[in-house]
């Protein structure tokens, strides 16, 4: 276990370094930011002068070496728009909003899907399956940005019941969480339903019935743990995606999260913030992947971490 964790952490560090390197070169390939910082009337000399001051005229490799050395010291540089605050801090202060939104949405989406999939199988009901999969697919076929706007229209504008923008208190969670959770719902229902269907014809399930076990208990304690295994990988990838910032939903609801700051930084070629933001995204993916692997070994005794 310990050996496994150490090896995975080393791998994770390498992965993050790769992501940062790619982010660095792709960012630089998109051009120099000088022109974007100055007004439209700025001359070429002024732009060049600014790029020179900010260090963007130096050889690419020299810039990279500086950047890489900084990374090892934990220094990701600072935004040239706001040089007094390190870029990593600007991203980090947005992290709680993103993580809380991601976790809440994820848990609610998964719990709803679990309840739906279990009810389909406990009641052996084709009607319930049709209802959940059709309903969920209908919701999924509406893009999140459109659904979000509709939700704001109904709940904030017409009913006036919920805040539509920003973060003003717990009620602010409702609309963005509803948008993300219902959007992912059908994905998990489909995965769980097909995994449970596959398990239902397994020999060990028949053995459990032959012991005299009730159908509900067979579904919940025999089939479900086995059905969760294949779903976990997919769920992990989704969660990591959300933790890296649900960019569209954060934009729609002006949610003060990582996704929003990352999008703005990209359009302004604010390289330091883009790199710090991508570090967060990469970290989320590697951490969630390690957690999923550990969960596998906890759930499935046949899996050995080595």
């Amino acid at each position, binding site marked *: 276990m310990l050996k496994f964790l150490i090896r995975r952490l080393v791998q994770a560090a390498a992965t993050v370094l790769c992501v940062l390197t790619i982010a660095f070169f792709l960012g630089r390939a998109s051009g120099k930011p000088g022109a974007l910082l100055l007004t439209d009337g700025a001359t070429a000399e002024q732009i060049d002068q600014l790029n020179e001051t900010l260090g963007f005229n130096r050889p690419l490799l020299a810039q990279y070496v500086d950047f890489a050395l900084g990374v090892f010291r934990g220094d990701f540089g600072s935004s040239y728009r706001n040089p007094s605050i390190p870029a990593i801090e600007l991203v980090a202060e947005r992290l709680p909003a993103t993580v809380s939104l991601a976790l809440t949405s994820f848990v609610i989406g998964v719990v709803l899907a679990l309840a739906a999939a279990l009810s389909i199988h406990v009641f052996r009901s084709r009607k319930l399956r049709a209802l959940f999969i059709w309903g969920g697919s209908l919701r999924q076929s509406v893009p999140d940005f459109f659904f979000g706007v509709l939700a704001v229209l109904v709940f904030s504008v017409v009913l006036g019941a919920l805040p539509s923008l920003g973060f003003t208190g717990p009620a602010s969670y409702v609309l963005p969480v509803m948008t993300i959770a219902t959007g992912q719902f059908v994905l998990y229902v489909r995965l769980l339903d097909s995994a449970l269907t596959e398990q239902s014809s397994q020999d060990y399930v028949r053995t459990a019935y032959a012991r005299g076990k009730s159908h509900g208990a067979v579904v919940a304690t025999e089939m479900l743990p086995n059905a969760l295994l294949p779903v976990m990988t997919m769920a992990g990838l989704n969660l990591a995606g959300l933790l890296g910032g649900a960019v569209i939903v954060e934009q729609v609801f002006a949610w003060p999260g990582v996704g929003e700051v990352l999008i703005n930084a990209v359009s302004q070629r604010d390289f330091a913030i883009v790199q710090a933001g991508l570090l967060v995204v990469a970290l989320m993916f590697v951490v969630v992947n390690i957690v999923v692997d550990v969960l596998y070994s906890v759930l499935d*005794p046949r899996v050995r971490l080595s």
Partner: protein
Amino acid sequence: MFDKSADDGVLLRVKNLVIVSEGPDGDVVIVDDVSFEVRLGEVLCIVGESGSGKSLTMLAVMGLLPAGLRVDSGSIELRGRDLLKLSENELRAVRGREIGMIFQDPMTSMNPLRRVGSQLAEAVRLHQRGLSRRDALARVYELLRSVGVPQPETRAKAFPHQWSGGMRQRAMIAMATANDPVLLIADEPTTALDVTIQSQVMDSLASTREKIGSAMVLITHDLGLAAENASRIAIMYSGRLVETGDVADVFRQPGHAYTKGLLASVLTGSRERAYAIPGSPPSPRDRPGGCAFAPRCPLAQGRTRCQEEVPVLRPLANGTLAACHFAEELLANESMLELSS
């Protein structure tokens, strides 16, 4: 229609059982009008090729037919009570308590995520609600020890994949017999095991059965296993019972050409080559009218009665019941198969 004198000793009576498969083009009859009985404490062997309906017949007794299959008509009486009329809750009290079942493949018959001991303890506690976890485990150790599992205390903590196939099947025997059922159903219990341990597991099953005094239905395609373990035998072909009787009678002088072919297909010291019944069994969908075995039967060649009229089981001079219009010819001509092959 059967021996009436044994009525009071009958444990399980299956009468005119019809199992159908529900398909888009209508139902297909899989098990066709099967009737047999199991008497208290006896071992009945059901023999037949794969797909002959022997496993499905016994799964119907458990109320565990796979999805898409259902009992169309007939009755299944256990100690006079029709199991087909029971509710799901009432059936649960029968499964694992009155009837224990052992399945073919011990590698897949246990939940891979749960400890063997916990699955066995559950079998005990499902039918003895008041029993504590500790007492249930003590019973599990006792059961495992009695089926020949060494160090049950440590092994019970292991997961199924850490057990060998033979040991797992012993655990399945322990599970099926946990509540001293009156009837055991063993569905090809040794088919999936290495030849070297088949007889050990069979011995363990036989001695456990004797200890608790239950009756057993042994499903197999191994006639040797039937000869060693059963008192009576029932032969199935294409979803129908073609012959049934005491093992000694059936083996001495079979009353059905299919039984005779099966017996001749076993390699013995007295024959150089095993006999092979020509052709292959029909799928239930294409089952011929009349006798299902007619296309492969040396007696049926050129006879329209075999093609038109389904034969019913009837008592014969050899002491067995067989479903054949011309069984007497077979009994009169002992060397029939050898001549025709």
